[in-house]
Every structure is written in C-alpha cells, then in structure tokens.
C-alpha cells in the first residue's frame, strides 16, 4: 500500500470536519441550555439536615394513655406506663396527616383509610410500615422532640419507649 492511500484513509474531508464541528457545537449549546434550565429551576431550599427541635411540655403534665397532637410540628406524643413515644403524624403510605381517634383508640388516615394501633402499627390499609418515630429526650423534666429525621421502623418494640 502506498503512502497516498493510507493518508486518504486517515484524513477526513474539510466538509466532514466542518459538519462535525457544527454538530459538536450544537450539542454543547443545547446541552448547556437544558442543564442550565434544570439548574436554574432546581429548588434553592435545601432539605432540612439540621435539627428541628421543639419542647412538647413538662413530663408530669402527661397522663398515662393520653395522646396529644402538636399540629404545627405534625407530631403525636403518647404517654405509656413506662414512658413516652413521639410519632410522626405523616402517614407512611402517601404523606397525608393521620388523626387520633379517641373513641376507637386508633390513628386514622383520611386519605386511604389506613388505621394504626396506639403503638403506631398498621391494623388495616395500605401503609408499608408503622408510623415513624421522632427522637425524644427528657431534659430538665421537659420533653424535647427532634422532628428533623424520623426513625423508620418495622414494628413496635418496647425498647422504642423513652423512659420518663
């Protein structure tokens, strides 16, 4: 094979080079526009990684068996014999807010009819897991709840109860 044909195989024509350059430029520009648009529209609010703490009240103010709802924080505080549980009121099915039915002693979700027992376990309905728990601490005889990161659980376990 002589030199000329090998050169012919390796080089590209001027026309082809310019076409490739145009296509490459177009891909870069359009890609920038698409990525830039998404970056522009991406929410500035960062997901709450820090602590969201609120004080639910004094330990001695809760009666055994009582369930108190904190509307703004979407939290239920339940007083048991041994201590406290802090439930997230957000239904683990599709994020509706459940209510406490004092007559039937159940948590009920208005959206898809889910029912939870007083320990947050699913009695009926579609939720895949029990109500999530929030971190609860007793500081200076007061209940301090951190709603930043709900604890996902498979089922109720007496060890989840915070003594107090």
């Amino acid at each position, binding site marked *: 094979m002589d030199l000329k044909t090998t050169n012919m195989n390796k080089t590209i024509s001027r026309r082809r080079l310019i076409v490739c350059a145009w296509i490459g430029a177009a891909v870069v520009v359009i890609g920038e526009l698409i990525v830039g648009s998404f970056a522009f*529209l991406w*929410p500035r*609010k960062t997901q*709450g990684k820090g602590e969201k703490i609120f004080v639910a009240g004094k330990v001695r103010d809760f009666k055994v068996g009582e369930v108190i709802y904190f509307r703004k924080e979407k939290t239920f505080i339940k007083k048991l014999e041994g201590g406290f549980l802090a439930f997230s009121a957000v239904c683990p099915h*599709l*994020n*509706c807010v459940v209510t406490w039915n004092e007559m039937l002693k159940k948590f009920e979700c*208005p959206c898809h009819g889910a029912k939870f027992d007083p320990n947050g376990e699913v009695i009926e309905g579609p939720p895949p897991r029990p109500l999530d728990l929030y971190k609860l601490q007793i500081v200076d005889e007061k209940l301090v709840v951190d709603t930043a990161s709900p604890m996902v659980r498979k089922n109720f376990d007496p060890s989840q109860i915070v003594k107090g």
Partner: protein
Amino acid sequence: MKKGILQRISDSAVWRSIFRTGIPDTDLKRSMLIFNNFFLHIFPAKMKRHGLCFSFTFCLGGISCLLFIILTVTGILLMFLYTPSIERAYFDMQALALLFNGKILRNLHRWSAHGMVATVFFHMVRVFYTRSYRPPREFNWVVGIGLLVLTLALSYTGYLLPWDQLAYWGITVGTTIMTYTPFLGSYIRFFMLGADEVGHEALLRFYVLHCVVLPFFTGLLMAIHFWRVRKDGGISGPL
C-alpha cells in the same frame, strides 16, 4: 347587467387582497377557498363520503379540540383574576362567585377539563376499536399518547390551583407517588414541588406549568396530530 353591492365589494382590491378566491361558483374555486384560508386549511378541500358518517368517529377528536379551545378562552379570562400565592389563591377563587359570569366561567373551565379527559379517552378507545392506529397512522397514535399524557398533566396541575383541602392533599399524595420512581424518586418530588412539602413554591410551579408550559406543548402536538391526520389519509374510513 349592473353589479350589486355585494358583487362590488367582493370584486374590490381590498377584498381580493384578503380573500384571493372570488365568489366560489365552481368546484375549483370552492376548493381554493378552503385551501387559501388560514382557518379553513386544516379541513380537506374535498371530503370523502364516509368522513361525514357520524358513527365512524362520534366526533370525539373534534369535541376534544373544542373543549381545549373553551379551556383556553376561559382559562385566560380566569388568569386575570387569580393570584398564584398561598395567601390569595383560595380567596381569589372564591371571589369569582361575586363577579359577573365568574361562577359560570370557572365551572365551564372545570367541567370542560373533566369532559376533555373523558373525550380524549373515548377518542382513544374509538381509534383502538376501529383499528385506526395501524400503518400509516401508527405515528399519529404515538402523538395521541403524548396528547393524552398532556391532558392528564394539565388536569393534575390545575387541580392544585384552587388551594383548598382537596387540592393540597391531592398534590401531596400525587407527588408522593412520584417518590416510588426507582433511584430518582425523592429528587423528582423535590423538583416538582420546589420544596420538601406542598407550599408556595409548588403552587407557583404548578401555575406556570398549567398556564404556559403544558398548553404550549399541547398546542404543538395538536398541530402535528391534525396535520398527520390529513397526511395519513384523512379522518376515518379505510385507506
């Protein structure tokens, strides 16, 4: 013979500059009338006999298009009186009842939206059962799927705008369903809502999608859809 007033108008330079075809007294001129008119050109110049047969199409595509036009007109009127903010949205929606024709406009918009979902669905069923999706119309079926998705998306984004309990929890549930998407789930929800929960950002995003973005793409796909109907052999009937 002396020319009548109508004859003179239709022969005048101004008239002829707007409507190129004169009095449509021949078949050619009748065809040209349709052909040269912007609003009429989506219709065929010549109609096949079976194209007029009601039970071939039940006019479902046409009704869907009509409902879309009603929705556009009433939607634009409603936009003048609605503020997409969580402080005002619900009250603006309620205040429509106090205005002349306010209630009827809102209800026209609402019922037309419900109706359009139904007619688009029935249109699809009709196309399916008459096997009208087969070549050469197969691409138009795909465009139709796009229009179905856009219709549903328009309905869904409009659902949040009254900012009542139904809207709030409807969007909470719907966007939580999005989180079940593999890998990207929670990001999609976060991007759609603009925040972790349904709030002001979500209302604004849904408003812009509902009023600008989705209608634009629906109009574009409708234009392609109608053009393809004509190019693929006209409405209804065997090829």
